């Protein structure tokens, strides 16, 4: 099995999908000849030509709006938003149009668009190349939201996304685009959406993370293990609809949960996960559900390591939750 980086796995998935399904088209800024600023679409223009790998004018609203029309007509567009920080000019098209088209037309029209967008910090990108806006989309009925953390999942989930009929916001952890390497099955291979992955099993405490935070949480769990705290680490993979069975089962088993994400804490996905756990696992809980997250500030440039919920902060959250006594 070939070893690929996460961004190579995305590229591979796009190539596999485009070879097998003529309806799949890629559009976005710099995705064609240049192959994308992160090289996610490298080589596709050469193989599939300008009618399937479309360099668009610089307008996120135009990209998403056009992708909706394409999907409505029967194509399977993959729209790249260069950084998720730039998704807001296309936000209306995503939230009011893409997400609601099936509902408002009672199923007469639908737009299975996949919006790919790199998210998260840690690349010295400052306020506008670091954001994690996933909760805004999780809060929008009609969208599915995913965030893989491994090359294998990135490929398998992108191919699953392209087989589905619902619009999907596909967040890619850009900090580990190249750092994350792993074996990736060749050819058409799918990882089902809506299923979390248990990265490691443990009996004392559950850590729930996604995207680049999974690796940080994994390091924290290693450290915790040396202190005698056995963490169960869940990589959510699909943010919505999240794998409620997996989350509930683990929370009931350990009674102690830490949720990790880079996005700001207030009304972040951790808030929803915390609410779901207390609704379903109340009598099983031994400690408050703890959120280890980005702070409720804009994403800072110089102090990004202080902002990010790295392994050290996660470990503190794990320790305090593990030793919490009511």
């Amino acid at each position, binding site marked *: 099995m070939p070893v690929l980086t996460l961004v190579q796995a995305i590229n591979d998935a796009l190539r596999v999908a485009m070879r097998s399904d003529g309806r799949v088209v890629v559009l976005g800024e710099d995705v064609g000849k240049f192959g994308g600023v992160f090289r996610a679409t490298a080589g596709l223009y050469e193989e599939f030509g300008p009618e399937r790998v479309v360099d668009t004018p610089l307008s996120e609203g135009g990209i998403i709006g056009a992708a909706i029309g394409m999907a409505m007509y029967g194509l399977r567009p993959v729209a790249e938003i260069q950084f998720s920080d730039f998704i807001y000019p296309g936000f209306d098209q995503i939230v009011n149009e893409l997400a609601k088209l099936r509902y*408002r037309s009672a199923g*007469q029209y639908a737009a299975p668009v996949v919006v790919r967008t790199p998210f998260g910090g840690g690349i010295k990108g400052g306020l506008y190349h670091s954001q994690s806006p996933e909760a805004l989309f999780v809060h929008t009925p009609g969208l599915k939201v995913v965030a893989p953390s491994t090359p294998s999942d990135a490929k398998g989930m992108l191919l699953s996304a392209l087989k589905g009929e619902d619009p999907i916001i596909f967040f890619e952890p850009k900090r580990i685009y190249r750092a994350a390497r792993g074996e990736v099955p060749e050819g058409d291979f799918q990882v089902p959406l809506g299923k979390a992955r248990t990265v490691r099993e443990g009996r004392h405490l559950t850590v729930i993370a996604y995207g680049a935070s999974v690796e940080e949480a994994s390091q924290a769990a290693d450290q915790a293990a040396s202190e005698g705290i056995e963490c169960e680490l869940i990589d959510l993979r699909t943010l919505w609809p999240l794998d409620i069975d997996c989350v509930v089962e683990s929370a009931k088993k350990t009674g102690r949960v830490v949720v990790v994400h880079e996005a700001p804490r207030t009304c972040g996905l951790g808030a929803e996960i915390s609410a779901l756990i207390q609704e379903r696992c109340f009598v099983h809980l031994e400690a408050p559900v703890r959120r280890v997250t980005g702070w409720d500030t804009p994403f800072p440039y110089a102090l990004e390591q202080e902002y990010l919920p790295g392994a050290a902060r996660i470990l503190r959250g794990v320790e305090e939750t593990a030793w919490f006594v009511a």
Partner: protein
Amino acid sequence: MGLAQNGATREVAAGAPPGKGKEARGGPMLSGEDLLRLYLAMVLVRVLDQRMMTLQRQGRVGFYGACTGQEAACLGSAYALRENDWIFPSLREGGAMLLRGFPLLPYVCQVLGNSGDPTKGRQMPSHQSARSVRQVSWSSCIGTQLPQAVGAAWAARRQGDELVALAYLGDGATSSGDFHAAMNFAGVLRAPVVFLCQNNHWSISLPTSRQTASESIAIKAVAYGFPGAKVDGNDVEAVYAATAEAVARARAGGGPTLIEAETYRIGAHSSSDDPTRYRDPAEVEAWMAKDPIDRLRHRLEGLGLWEAGREAALQAELQAQVAAAIEQAEALPKVAPETLFDDVYAEEPWNLSEQRRELTRGLAARRRPSEPSKAV
């Protein structure tokens, strides 16, 4: 042309695929039969709008946005399409669906939002859509349909289908970012799309001069690298000719066109609006003298295709058709509550299944302890 037994709508519906106009003086022209079809369709829309506004005032309809005064711009342009062409409408183009064969009863059911509405009562009135006549679903958000029309048109061309997307907008929409995005994308991608701007002079309370300092809307096309045309939007033949030319060009691979059809919103923006607060009644009267339906009737009379004596019978016939549709529609039950959760996703996620059960069960029916207790 007989009007008995749903004659008007039948005749209109039977017109599809319309637009087989003859070429004359270098441009497409409508035959007498086409003009008569359009006349009946325009009068039907006028009658329907009046009845719906009345129902709104009576509390039987929640909201309504009428086409009154703009029938020539709306229907004359839609008539230039083939059956497989797509329409991306905005607020006042429901009549185009009727012109293209959509039946009156489900149309009225949509206005009422009841179980007869093919869109399950999801949208406010005047937000009709139907795949059967290739009329796309519109949100209420101004201009958002425009880049979608570009994408659909581009996709059709890529799939080898010779069809055109006709996207409607008002003068207010030309201020939106999506207008710019769509025009720009259409120009760059050379998509087979026609933008039909009904400049009706008012965007709710604001005159066109508060939307743009440009000398016209049509001229904006120049900056996007494709033709723009300004036509008398109350002259159905002029609207048809301009649209037919643009549609033919798009179909032949010649790219997009922006058409500005200058017309006037005779009534309020919607049933929620009171235009006497912001515009001069004299202006409205001046435009009423240029009513597109009166103009077409005079034209037909001049061609010997219509006589004043037939007007009362036509009105009575259309009123009866609309009344019958309303009666049938009002007899239908409301939308079933369980449908609330349908169509959010192709594949229903667990949270919706859970909430569906919660709605159905009713929280009130759940057994409660006599008083809340707190563990000590």
